[in-house]
């Protein structure tokens, strides 16, 4: 019994250690949302989860960028852990933005 409790505690700690606090800002609606993501989630999955939490529909031409402006749409198939370990992400704050043009 004591062993089971200890094992459950261990599993919970292990689970918590793989959770990352993420933050998404939806520019069109001026709303933000924060939630816990698993570090093994792909960026695409995490982005999809953000729309659910925001209660917003995804638009086909939405883009994802970090809070400091880096376009991360090319990395949607990679996991959060991979992106962080490879310094593609410095933090887990994102902005969902619409299309723009210029230059």
């Amino acid at each position: 019994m004591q062993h089971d409790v200890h094992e459950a505690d261990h599993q919970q700690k292990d689970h918590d250690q793989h959770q990352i606090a993420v933050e998404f800002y939806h520019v069109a609606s001026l709303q933000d949302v924060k939630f816990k993501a698993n570090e093994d989630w792909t960026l695409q999955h995490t982005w999809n989860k953000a729309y659910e939490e925001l209660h917003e529909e995804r638009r086909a031409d939405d883009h994802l960028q970090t809070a400091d402006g880096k376009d991360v749409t090319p990395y949607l198939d990679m996991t959060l852990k991979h992106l962080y370990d490879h310094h593609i992400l410095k933090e887990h704050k994102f902005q969902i933005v619409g299309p723009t043009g210029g230059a």
Partner: protein
Amino acid sequence: MNAPVHLQDIHAGREAFQRDLAAYLKGRSLADVGWVEPDDLTLLVPVFVRNPETQQPDFYLLRLVFDHYPKGPPSAQFVNPLTLSYEYPKDVMWVPRSEGSQTIAFHPNYNGNVQLICSSTTLEFYKVNHSVEPANVWNCDRMNFISTLSAIRAGLTDGFYKGRAKAPA
């Protein structure tokens, strides 16, 4: 295509700016986010960008004016932080230099007569009659001044930002 400049409407601009600003701040003060509102149509936003050579932050001051908002985007100009104005070529160092972005460029003296943050999220872009893809035209149903700040920030990330603009020799 070219998109028209919407008519100036100070009353609508003031109302929409205050509405969107309050929605963004969510109870925080302007001081909390480091912004200044010198009047009810203008927002001053400090912008810090890591210099690729020195690795130190370069400071710029962005001025947004909301007199065509929300049907049109805010005017966006980098200004001299001491004078809060922009005069070419004297103030050219207060404009960032960015190369390689497909969505934005920063021109200290576009066509010899205006500073242009060349993005469909700025008023000046439409005033110079710049061509634009239909999908990128300012749409107040899904764009607001945070779209402008996000677009500008995206043009100043590592890889694009090259330091301060310089006047021609």
